[in-house]
């Protein structure tokens, strides 16, 4: 299956040439359309076509072959409603409708399109589509289903990227290797999938969990950017596409150093410089204060309390004691299994716990499967999460250090992460015992005299009671300076947490026999799919280089899939169906494009425009094809019921989020605040397993757009989940559009809808005054952006007089006219 006649190139990101690409894809030309280079087509000439728009030429050509033609343009009210629903996910304001309908400028629609594309709601709408494709959610899934409290940062990054029209190649690169591009947040893409956090000492289970994580990263990358499914090659070579099993494992090797986790964004260079400066000043002050440090017994005597533990630095000042063994027992943590990056024990300022000084560390347990979290990191002299130990007991763990010989120890320094990046797994309830011989344990320090855990607490306690007045004055001055400096340090380094990938240098990758990670076969080097320009990295290639190479490969301008796949997605969300109706499968098992040349045109335009999504969308929106009427006609329905040929604009039901947003919009209740932590549609029971209970009443806090609702895996919103809303467990490149009685019940009876109908009815009265006809006019304008016809008005009046405005609003908000893209 591998192309043998092509040169195997050594690994260097982006080092292959257009010529090589073309040579490779030429070899594939016979195999499958999507693996051949994109070729700009020539425009067909269609008799009688008045439009000069290239898209219309391709559409009209196919229609003509079936005796059909484009429909007339939709009226302006319909057009602006369609434009808002499709591009912004909610109806237009009445003023905007009125202005557009009255606009005599021949370029009125183009100008409207420009305004809509510049509207910040655009990013929220299109960001939501992207989040479907990349299986975004804000909980871990599986039975524990705990929250990822910082996952929303990626959602905000996506919204911003769409609004800023970040070129697609850069958009891709940042998600794969944003850590090298100053866009750390974007790498949540890699680890956004469901993640089984239930650990076990069972090695087979641990290996399977890791294999599943890598499969999620590899498959999502492949379907998202390349429209190729790799999943079957996990167990055997792909049956439909030329993807040998070895390729699958070569691809997983690209992600082998990527792990799930929360972390702080790294400091900027300016922050780093400021911190260095502050640290130097602190370092100059601290030695002058050493003699005022208290010891534990004095503290206890004075009932003084020590500050709470911190993630980055904890110090235990001891009554000097002779010891051969020190035992550190952890009984409780901030969360999960405890982690310690370094445990230093000093005798006269010499760290006698260091392995290099002959000390030996033992532990009660170790989290399986992580080279970076082993026992030997406890006393290797290296700091940071990548050289730390984590236990395998939830909230508990014991570390013991045996010195080379008995030592008179006076100080212990320990931390979760002295580099200040990681903020989790911190011991909060612990004690230290010392012994000369095993069994003679004697308590030397504990958390009992510490204040409860709070953020940003600092350093040791100083006791000036015994100092002379002059010394005390000096010490106080220095302490004030120290406090100020630490405040500055804290504000300089105030951390922004993200649920982004964490990276470490991986070990070798092996092909797993039949997909079973307990049956490793030959070692596989990281490589791109051999189907295209072959590129293999060294088996031990640095972690980040692997992803750099992958990003460069995917975004190479001659990659035959990247642009095709993306323009098809855009087309799909703009028309409700793609030119290729299998958006994540451009392989041989997928459906061929309905309009192959049009796809080529769009792909080549997109690449030529510098990967600007908005530019391509503008091209589509300004076609007659997109602006045509959605009215059906009998002949065309017979010939092409599914409207694959686009003889009309295909009407479709709004998606879950667009319905909820539009209801809030119509009731005048929508909070347009963008970004930030998610609001909750559920009350959360945070047991070992998290339970999510649907809220029954909603207030202003739940009135933001639904993209800002906490996306909980498994537990869907009780009203809108039934509208084919994906839960983020798997990639959802194209939503179902089913129609069910539960949807009808949810929308007709839910407390949410009844509440919004009530609010709307009150607003109609306050906005339109006491006269019923005025209120009805206002209702039609708010909900349907039109005036009611005379018969509608009469019927509505009759109904409202009998049953009230709230009942009327309940019906209007449930009607098909409100729920379908016109």
């Amino acid at each position: 299956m591998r192309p043998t006649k092509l040169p195997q190139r050594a690994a260097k990101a982006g080092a292959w040439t257009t010529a090589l690409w073309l040579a490779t894809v030429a070899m594939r030309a016979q195999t499958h359309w999507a693996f051949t280079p994109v070729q700009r087509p020539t425009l067909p000439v269609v008799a009688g076509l008045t439009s000069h728009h290239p898209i219309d030429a391709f559409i009209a050509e196919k229609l003509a072959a079936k005796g059909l033609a484009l429909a007339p343009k939709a009226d302006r009210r319909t057009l602006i409603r369609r434009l808002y629903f499709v591009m912004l996910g909610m109806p237009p304001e009445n003023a905007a409708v009125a202005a557009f309908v009255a606009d005599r400028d021949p370029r009125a629609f183009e100008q409207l399109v420009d305004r809509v594309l510049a509207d910040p709601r655009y990013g929220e709408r299109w960001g939501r589509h992207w989040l479907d494709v990349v299986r975004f959610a804000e909980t871990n899934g599986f039975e524990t289903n705990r929250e990822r409290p910082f996952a929303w940062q990626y959602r905000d990054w996506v919204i911003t990227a769409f609004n800023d029209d970040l070129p697609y190649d850069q958009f891709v690169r940042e998600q794969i290797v944003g850590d090298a591009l100053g866009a750390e947040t974007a790498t949540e893409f890699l680890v956004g999938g469901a993640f089984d956090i239930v650990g076990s000492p069972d090695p087979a289970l641990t290996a399977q969990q890791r294999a599943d994580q890598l499969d999620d990263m590899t498959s999502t990358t492949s379907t998202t950017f390349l429209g190729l499914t790799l999943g079957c090659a996990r167990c055997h070579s792909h049956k439909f596409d030329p993807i040998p099993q070895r390729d699958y494992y070569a691809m997983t090797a690209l992600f082998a150093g990527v792990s799930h986790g929360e972390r702080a964004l790294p400091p900027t260079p300016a922050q780093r410089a400021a911190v260095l400066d502050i640290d130097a000043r602190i370092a100059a002050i601290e030695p002058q204060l050493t003699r005022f440090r208290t010891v534990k017994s004095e503290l206890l005597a004075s009932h003084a309390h020590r500050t709470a533990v911190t993630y980055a630095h904890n110090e235990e000042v001891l009554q000097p004691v002779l010891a051969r063994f020190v035992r550190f027992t952890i009984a409780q943590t901030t969360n999960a299994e405890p982690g310690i990056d370094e445990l230093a024990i000093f005798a006269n300022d010499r760290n006698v716990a260091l392995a290099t000084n002959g000390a030996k560390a033992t532990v009660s347990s170790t989290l399986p499967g992580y080279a970076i979290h082993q026992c030997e990191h406890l006393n290797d002299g290296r700091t940071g999460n990548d050289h730390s130990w984590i236990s395998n007991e939830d909230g508990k763990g014991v570390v013991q250090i045996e010195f080379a010989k008995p030592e008179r120890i006076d100080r212990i320094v320990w931390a979760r992460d002295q580099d200040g990046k990681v903020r989790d797994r911190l011991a909060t309830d612990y004690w230290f015992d010392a012994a000369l011989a095993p069994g003679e344990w004697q308590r030397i320090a504990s958390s009992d005299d510490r204040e409860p855990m709070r953020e940003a607490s600092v350093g040791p306690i100083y006791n000036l009671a015994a100092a002379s007045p002059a010394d005390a004055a000096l010490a106080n001055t220095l302490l004030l300076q120290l406090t100020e400096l630490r405040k500055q340090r804290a504000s300089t380094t105030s951390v922004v947490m993200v649920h982004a990938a964490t990276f470490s240098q991986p070990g070798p990758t092996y092909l797993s026999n039949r997909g079973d990670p307990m049956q490793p076969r030959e070692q596989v080097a990281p490589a791109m799919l051999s189907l295209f320009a072959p590129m293999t990295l060294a088996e031990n290639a640095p972690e980040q280089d692997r992803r750099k190479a992958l990003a460069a490969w995917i975004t190479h301008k001659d990659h035959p899939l990247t642009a095709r796949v993306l323009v098809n997605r855009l087309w799909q969300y703009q028309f409700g169906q793609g030119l290729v109706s299998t958006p994540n499968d451009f392989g041989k098992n997928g459906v061929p494009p309905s309009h192959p040349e049009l796809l080529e045109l769009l792909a080549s335009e997109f690449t030529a425009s510098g990967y600007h999504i908005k530019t391509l969308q503008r091209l589509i929106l300004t076609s007659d094809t997109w602006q045509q009427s959605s009215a059906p006609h009998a002949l065309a329905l017979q010939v092409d019921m599914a409207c694959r040929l686009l003889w009309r604009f295909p009407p479709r039901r709004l998606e879950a989020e667009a319905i909820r947003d539009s209801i809030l919009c119509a009731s005048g209740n929508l909070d347009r605040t963008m970004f930030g932590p998610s609001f909750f549609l559920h009350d959360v029971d945070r047991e070992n397993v998290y339970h999510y209970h649907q809220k029954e009443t909603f207030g202003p806090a739940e009135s933001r757009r639904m993209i800002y609702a906490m996306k909980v895996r498994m537990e869907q919103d009780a009203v809108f989940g039934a509208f084919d809303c994906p839960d983020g467990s798997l990639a959802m490149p194209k939503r179902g559009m089913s129609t069910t009685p539960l949807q009808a019940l949810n929308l007709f009876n839910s407390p949410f809808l009844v509440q919004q109908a009530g609010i709307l009815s009150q607003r109609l009265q306050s906005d339109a005054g006491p006269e019923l006809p005025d209120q009805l006019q206002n209702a039609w304008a708010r909900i349907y952006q039109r005036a009611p016809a005379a018969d509608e008005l009469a019927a509505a009046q009759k109904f409202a007089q009998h049953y009230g405005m709230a009942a009327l609003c309940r019906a209007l908000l449930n009607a098909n006219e409100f729920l379908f893209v016109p």
Partner: protein
Amino acid sequence: MTQMPRSLHALKSLQSLQALQSRRRFLVEGGFGLGAIALRALLHGQDPAPASIAGKAPIRPLLQPGRPYTPRAPHHIPRAKNVLVIFCSGAVSQIDTFDYKPELIRCHGEALPGGEKLITFQGGQGALTKSPWRFRPRGQSGKMISDLVPHIGALADKICFIHSMQGKTNTHGPGENYLSTGYTLDGFPSMGAWISYALGSENQDLPAYVAIPDPRGKPQNSVNNWAPGFLPAAFQGTDFNARQPIRNLARPTGITATDDAATRAYLQQLNERHAANFPGDTELLARMASHELAARMQQTIPAIADLTSEPQHILDLYGAESSGSKIGDLRAGYARNCILARRLVERGVRFVQLFNGAYQTGGEGVSNWDGHKDLLAQYSVHGPVLDQPTAGLLIDLEQRGLLAETLVVWCTEFGRMPSFQQGAQGRDHNPNGFTCWLAGAAVKQGTSHGATDEFGYRAVENVVSVHDFHATILHLLGLDHERLCYYHNGLERRLTDVEGRVVREILA
């Protein structure tokens, strides 16, 4: 760029409008007689994929827009019409219920051979430990079943035990996913969703698929157990039980029945007027039809969930009334769900999934079968809660003649170890061998299939994988597990992935 109306298009539009615009005619031809309208070959969201799998062409049922539950033909003659799954969440110990091992009793207190190196879910192994419950011969067949489940034991002659089940995960979440969806990962359609997608339902006024959670709460993997995955949302399990009605089913508080009905009628007017502008658009009609079905469900479901019409002898059969003890309350709660399950089967609901055991609340094993630490105390609750109501359900189905056409499936996510855990009085997870059983619908009665080793640790004889188990259930419903497909994300997906073998040995 004003477009000239093209003559053909304009003419045809006009004709079709003239033909269909009359509202009366519209109603007759299409409004609620969807059959008169040309059906869309496929529901939105699914597209044909050209390739077939290993010579077996995928079969994807034709779905009518707005009528997802219309009955659809099976692939071959079925032996069962309905399925009733009893899912015991938390992993029931086969050692203490149905898998009798004299060798384990003999070796009680000894080390499990090879056990010193064996690391299971929570860690190391203690000694082999016989069940605290005595096993006795039951029924004509003399099947050895423990005193933990005597009522079920008494029905041994009706049941086909599979002792050689084997899973591939020892974690509850993935394990429940596996039993319910055929995949350990999240996001795949449940068996019930597959079956209602394949066959629709006999009853158009009820959902095709109902999940009945334990009165104590949802199972450990929650709604994943009845999720639609990538299948159309219509096929997800609708969850309610004898205590908790369907959400949003009831008329909203503060709205009178008259006002509610008038609002519904007015909504229908709005939709008819709108649809008249889109003659032939099935999506719009489907939504209108869904309102009709919703209205009917509002009548039928509360009536089904209301057990007041059940006579005393039936309540007694199931143990549906509590003596006031804690166990009595729990048993009565589960028993009422069992009665509800029977009522749903009686009315033609295709797939009913009844849960015994809820998510971990109050500690391991307290509200489900996860007996790690104190097996004797915990199973002394769970056994009686499960036993009589489950047996009552089987007896009741049989006396109403429903058992012949209903496949009853009793299952759990995996088994437990024959040894106790190190330092504990309970058993750790064990996917290597466990017991499930089937009854009804042309399954061999009073038989046992497959076996674990002498201690009940690992399935060694006629091993049945979860995929085999699913394939067999589909087969009994007249479905070929290799052909029932749904195209998603580049693949023809199946309940049984790329595996599964029908266990013909257990078919009568």
